């Protein structure tokens, strides 16, 4: 066992897949000689060579488009968005070209588009986004958002092996903040499409993912300590395809449910989860489904503003108390 960070887990996962499968290659801005803006790909160029670690111009559409073309020919590209905020520049290629390729034309497009996502890092409006909902709506794209070190590694490996296109939201707040012992020499895979019970409980379910898992766990500890209530935390891990069964299982146990995500509220994924619960498990609810999300604003820079706009552990505590009192 060796204690590694979330970032190191990602690195290991990609490294192992590149060793295992020579079809896997990386492309993106500043990923080779520089090792990436966050050093996720540090050392890859030296080990795997310029043919498999491709530094590109600042062209997100071309990066994703070229990845798709190479994937059609049997390769397994992993494209880095330097910050996931810039994935919007490739929105057309991802939603119109990549997402439809199998359906409309039977084209194999096993690509991974990954990048540092999310806020709580004082990154301002364009280095803090969590644009999951922008792609959630498009059939044909798998969306993955690991919260733990183990899942960072297990899911990047699963994403690279997956035969469908995967957008991989790695949370930059977690890059160096969390550590975990990972077994060495084990082929660690987290299956895409399976949620995880991050904390068992019986009074209330919180469905969440990515960095919000940690805020929620913090809240759950506080609620247990101060209120004596037991909160179950479901870490979705994969947003598409979503493990709705895991959500329903937990709800049938607790009968109260809160959905917490860091993305903005309107059109956010929590709305879809709430709709599915309403359609499939209405009779299991003892209280309305409630959401804890970011406010509907761009994400501001100043710490006071960012902390206000983004959901915090204290928000989860307050919302949980409201639901438990209902």
């Amino acid at each position, binding site marked *: 066992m060796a204690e590694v960070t979330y970032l190191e887990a990602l690195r290991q996962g990609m490294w192992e897949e590149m060793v295992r499968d020579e079809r896997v290659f990386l492309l993106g801005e500043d990923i080779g000689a520089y090792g990436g803006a966050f050093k996720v790909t540090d050392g890859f160029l030296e080990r795997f060579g310029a043919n498999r670690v491709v530094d590109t111009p600042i062209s997100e*559409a071309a990066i994703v488009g070229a*990845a798709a073309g190479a994937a059609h020919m049997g390769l397994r590209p992993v494209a880095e968005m330097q910050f996931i905020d810039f994935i919007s520049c490739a929105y057309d290629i991802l939603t119109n070209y990549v997402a439809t390729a199998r359906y409309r034309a039977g084209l194999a497009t096993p690509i991974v588009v990954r990048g540092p996502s999310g806020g709580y890092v004082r990154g301002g409006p364009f280095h803090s986004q969590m644009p999951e909902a922008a792609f959630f709506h498009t059939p044909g794209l798998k969306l993955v958002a690991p919260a733990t070190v183990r899942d960072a590694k297990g899911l990047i490996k699963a994403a690279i092996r997956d*035969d469908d296109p995967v957008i991989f939201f790695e949370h930059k707040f977690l890059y160096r903040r969390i550590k975990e012992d990972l077994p060495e020499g084990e082929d660690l895979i987290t299956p895409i499409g399976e949620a995880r019970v991050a904390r068992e409980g019986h009074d209330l379910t919180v469905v969440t993912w990515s960095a919000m898992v940690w805020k929620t766990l913090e809240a759950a500890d506080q609620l247990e300590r101060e209120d004596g209530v037991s909160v179950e935390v479901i870490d979705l891990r994969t947003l598409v395809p979503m493990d709705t069964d895991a959500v329903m299982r937990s709800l049938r146990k607790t009968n109260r449910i809160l959905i917490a995500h860091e993305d903005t509220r309107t059109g956010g994924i929590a709305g879809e989860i709430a709709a599915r619960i309403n359609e499939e498990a209405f009779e299991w609810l003892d209280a309305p489904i409630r959401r804890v999300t970011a406010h509907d604003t761009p994400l501001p820079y100043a710490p006071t503003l960012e902390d206000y706009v983004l959901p915090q552990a204290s928000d989860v505590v307050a919302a949980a108390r409201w639901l438990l009192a209902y």
Partner: protein
Amino acid sequence: MTLAAGAPPIPAGLTHDDLRRIYYYLRLTRALETRLTNLYRQGKVIGGLYSSLGQEGESVASAFALERRDILSPLIRNLGSMLVKGARPVDVLRQYMAKAASPTAGREMNIHFNDLNLGYLGQISHLGDMVPVMAGIALSFRMRGEDRVGLVYVGDGATSTGTFHEGVNFAAVMRVPLVVMVEHNGYAYSTPTRRQAAVERLADKALAYGIPGITVDGNDVLAVYEVTKSAVERARSGGGVSLIEAVTYRRRGHAQHDDQRYQSPEEVARWETNDPVDRYLQRVTGAGWIGETDVAEIDAQVEVELDAAVADCEREPLPEPETALTGVFVRPATAPALWFRGLDG
């Protein structure tokens, strides 16, 4: 077929057989589109119909400059290039008529389909997007050390898009084996080229990418072949990307429903006298490279083939509705049918 006495040598290393085959594809393209027009008028084409009338020469000649192992990505008016690559007329008909047996099982329309084994990749409607995708295909050739070249077609309108710019620049920087064929046919839907780009020659755009830009008479079949052949050879030998501007003219509207009010009858008539198929025939028969009997044989062969193709697919069924749910992903293989479909009406 023996060389007619006193005939000049055939240019660009082409053989008599090549010239006959080029004529076959020109005729096949035009005749297939004529059949489609008739089917459209009979209401048998479900969606829009796009004609390449007057541009067949450029499509056929450029595709003919590729080897079998090379891959091209056509645009809506490059039916001819797909036929050269082995696309079957019956599949084109099935696509237009939305048949279950069409290459896309009724999911996509017209010539938006692909066969990477034969060497063509279907386009999407978002202009310019195929340039980065083809750059990636060409990148895969280079990464694997394969002796293959990519050819991507765009229209004059697509040169205004961001993906065109990103794709050409990306390919140029990477020096991948790619040829970019800019089909300059005068109009993007109703927008004339002078409203599309401020450069006189679209080939001048190549300058900004550090790649050669060549303008060629797109209605001169042998000239297009020669220029494309040399760009393909350049790409094959590691010389990187070339941009070719083929100047031609779109004699029909954007699609069959377009009344072409923005094109003057005089302008259209002028280009009718510059027809690429007529010009080709005059050239190859005038020089004695192909005989009148060859031409008649090919014309007859094409009609026989198309009779069979139309007969094959006309009575075929449309896809079963529930097949719409499969294949969004590899896993899960099927999207769930929605709850209200299980209810009594």
